[in-house]
């Protein structure tokens, strides 16, 4: 800052200049501190934990016979005549409550089809004459890789929805001109022996709003 030339300043002016210089220095220092961001420096937020990649998985829950054939995987579970004799229906035993007794060779099977497990007989779906096929409600032979035809013979409305794309999972292209839509089969989600799907672990909720003391169901949503 220039000031017009003046005669040698008397003593009080020296004091003022000293003050002015001091204030200027103070401001320069402040500016430098601002520029260096010495205070008001925001601590970077600790990154939130990332969601487990298992929640991003789109693969179906189960593999059907058709999937196993496609992936050339072990089909020994479907090799019925490895143990059973051809043309001779295996006997089925019941306990005194008319519950089917699962033989230990098939101990992985949980019988739980229908309300009160009413669909509880092997030959309701399996074909006792040819164990490598299934049989639909009206007795038609159904191959293991054509499960919807079997399920649809009882579950008509669900089959209708599935055919229209309204029931079950779908992926790929909604625009069929550009690509195929990938449909899942009934057994990709449902276990035919116990089709009801159980509970799942939910993915984590919204983090910044997560309340350690969950509000009762009647509380207002936080937003």
């Amino acid at each position, binding site marked *: 800052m220039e000031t017009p030339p003046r005669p040698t300043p008397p003593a009080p002016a020296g004091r003022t200049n000293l003050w*002015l210089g001091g204030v200027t220095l103070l401001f320069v220092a402040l500016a430098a501190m601002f520029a260096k961001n010495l205070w008001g420096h925001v601590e970077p937020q600790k990154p939130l934990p990332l969601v487990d990649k298992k*929640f991003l998985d789109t693969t179906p829950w189960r593999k059907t016979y058709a999937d196993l054939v496609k992936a050339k995987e072990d089909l020994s579970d479907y090799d019925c005549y490895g143990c059973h004799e051809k043309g001779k229906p295996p006997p089925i035993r019941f306990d005194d409550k008319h519950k089917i007794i699962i033989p230990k060779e098939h101990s992985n099977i949980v019988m739980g089809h229908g309300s009160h497990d009413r669909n509880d007989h092997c030959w309701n779906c399996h074909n006792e004459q040819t164990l490598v096929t299934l049989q639909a409600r009206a007795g038609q032979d159904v191959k293991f890789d054509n499960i919807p035809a079997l399920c649809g013979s009882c579950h008509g409305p669900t089959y209708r929805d599935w055919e229209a794309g309204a029931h079950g999972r779908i992926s*790929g292209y909604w625009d069929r*001109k550009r690509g195929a839509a990938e449909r899942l089969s009934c057994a990709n989600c449902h276990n035919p022996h116990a089709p009801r799907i159980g509970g799942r672990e939910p*993915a984590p*909720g919204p983090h910044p709003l997560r309340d350690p003391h969950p509000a009762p*169901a009647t509380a207002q949503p936080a937003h």
Partner: protein
Amino acid sequence: MPLPSPTPDKTSDAAMTRRSFLRGTAAVGGLTALAASLSPLRELDEFTNTEQFLQKYYKELTPDEMARVLKRIEGEVEKQYGVRPHVRDLKPMDGVEFVYCLNLTRCIGCRKCVHACVAENNQSRSPEIQYIRVLRLPHGSLDIEKAEHNYDAKQVPEPGFFYMPVQCQQCKNPPCVKVCPVNATWQEKDGITVIDYDWCIGCRYCEAACPYWARRFNFAKPQIPKDRVNPNMAYLGNRPRKQGVMEKCHFCIQRTRAGRYPACLEVCPVGARKFGNILDPESEVSFILKTKRVFIQLKEEMGTSPRFFYYFDK
């Protein structure tokens, strides 16, 4: 800056008048304040970009200009996130109007859609931005006031509750578009309400106008780990946003305008989510709207006419 000569002073302090002292102080103080007030700009290094600053309105960009813009965005994303993306400007298709249907009988509230959406659309992980909010409602009520979205169960579905995911409803009569003072958000002919993140000024009017809490604001610079960046990007879709702009669900433009299903639909383990072209009578959504008990457009009384329908199976 030479100061004009102060008026001759009769007092003894001729060299330094009160006026010149105040002037000097004010000048230095003012400069300091200016420096201080501009200091946050140093953190905006990635935004001080004349090309972006001078960019034209989206609808006025010629194809050549758009190509340059996409190239610039690809460079910026690579610099910031370390991943070379493929950014496209996908236009709406003729004869296509998107509709979403969600089956409340099937939804189990697992929140997989929330996180698939975050992964697909490059939302900020920290601070967290999510487009989908899964509401838990007690059976026998559709009163949103009773909804809870912070439920933390070991297993879902919990007995006595059902779940209703809410995201942008892609309204036919969108209040968010009406309030935008700069036309940075608009409805395209396929029904998707889009946001131009380069045009948004961050006033958050749209957030206030939306009755579905569907819009999100980037209060801080979005953080996305390098290995979680989705490189398949669209200009009006999932390209990374910057601090100070709005974002929301756009029906995965980068997927749906290329003919594919949205990410939230593909990850849904129970097939509760259905998406398609309502103008195609053979599509799943046409079938659902014709045959199912479609019970609401959420907050129907608002007159927003959502393209997002909730329905029951049984």
